[in-house]
Each structure stands twice: as structure tokens, then as C-alpha cells.
């Protein structure tokens, strides 16, 4: 398991290659990249700042990956989340999961992302034409995380 919180950008190709290196048991690699958009709730976003809770962030993501391991047959998982100032087109988050087969690998990747959205302590503040504002949590993210509970 790898969890990295960083201000720098990441290279998905390099990260996937590092996870696959020398492991012929891997038959599936699922990945997700989250990217900054230029519009949120109708407001044009020029820039955003991501704040986090150092220590708890890493701990909570590690706990989410542990849960994914308990529920699906996967080999390894990587989460990279950027913090600090970001602008539209920038990558924010990367999740990569490796496994033998696609079913469990896809599911674990989506689960990690859905849980991260509602449980990992990050907060976005957007700079828009209307000024600075903290992004409000979305009910749809709670619903996305909640549906995994039903499948448990």
C-alpha cells in the first residue's frame, strides 16, 4: 500500500509501471484520476486551494485501503492526493489498484475513491468571480459512499 500527499503533480504511467514491475500475477490494473474543472455549481473557477489534516489524512486513506483488501481480492493499492494551490486542468487525485481479475480490481478502485470523498479530511476552497468560497459537501457523494454499505 502506498499513500502520498503532495503538492507536486504525478505521472500515471510511471506510477502504474512501478506497481506492475516484476509481478506476472497481475492481470488487471484499474485507475482513477480526478481533475480540476473550470466550473462548479455554475461558478467559473480560476483556482482552488486544497487544505488537509496532516496525519489523519494518511491514516484515514490507509484505513480505506485496508477495507478494500478485506472486501475484494486485490494485490495492491496506491493513492496520491495533491494539496495546495491547483487550477483547472490540474490533476488532483490518483487511485491505482492491481489484482488478478478486473471485477474485484474495478470495484476496489471505485470503493476507495467513493470513501475518500466522504472520509478523508481534505477541504477545497475555490477562487471564483464571486470571490473565495469553501466548497460545500455534496449529498451525492454521501449516497455514492453509502451504496457500498448495502453490498457489504
Amino acid at each position, binding site marked *: 500500500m502506498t499513500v502520498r500527499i503532495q503538492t507536486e503533480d504525478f505521472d500515471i504511467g510511471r506510477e502504474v509501471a512501478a506497481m506492475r514491475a516484476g509481478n506476472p500475477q497481475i492481470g488487471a490494473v484499474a485507475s482513477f484520476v480526478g481533475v480540476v474543472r473550470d466550473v462548479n455549481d455554475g461558478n467559473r473557477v480560476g483556482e482552488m486551494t486544497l487544505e488537509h*489534516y496532516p496525519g*489523519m489524512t494518511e491514516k484515514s486513506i490507509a484505513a480505506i485501503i485496508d477495507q478494500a483488501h478485506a472486501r475484494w481480492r486485490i494485490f495492491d493499492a496506491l493513492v496520491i492526493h495533491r494539496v495546495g494551490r491547483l487550477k483547472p486542468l490540474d490533476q488532483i487525485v490518483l487511485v491505482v489498484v492491481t489484482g488478478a481479475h478486473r471485477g474485484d480490481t474495478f470495484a476496489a478502485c471505485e470503493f476507495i475513491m467513493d470513501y*475518500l470523498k466522504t472520509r478523508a479530511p481534505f*477541504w477545497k476552497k475555490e477562487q471564483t468571480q464571486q470571490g473565495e468560497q469553501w466548497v460545500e459537501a455534496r449529498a451525492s457523494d454521501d449516497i455514492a459512499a453509502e451504496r457500498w454499505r448495502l453490498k457489504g
Partner: protein
Amino acid sequence: MITILYFARLREALGKTSEQIALPAGVSDLGALRVLLRQRGGAWAEEMADGKQVRAAVNQDIAQGDTLINDGDEVAFFPPVTGG
């Protein structure tokens, strides 16, 4: 003493990143601590009000109102998370 951390909108509204306080007798869980902070009035009364969406952690684990607090703990208050 306990350490209390504030993040994001709460940090700005309360004008405080962190503080250390001695736990008064009778304040043994998170809910009671929230009531204690609310009694400071002003922005504290507003941000810690029952109707406000406030999340909390004790020793870096998500906590609820009935989560116990002990001397030496690290408590954090913050708005619902918006990462990813």
C-alpha cells in the same frame, strides 16, 4: 490538557488553528466539549450550533458526540470533507 485543532471554514470563522485547554470536570465526551466551546459566544456559538454541519475526530479517528475524550487527546473540528 487536550489539543484542539480547527480546519477549513471553522479555522477561518473562529480565527484559530489550534489551542490547548484543560478539560473541565464534567466534560468527558465530544458532545460536551462542543457545548463548552459554544458557550464562548459569537462565532463559537454560531459555528458549533446544533444545526451546523460540524465533523470531528479524536486522535485522528472520525468521532461522534458520545466519543470519550481523555487528557492528552488530540481533538479536531472541521466541516464535511470535500477532497477528491
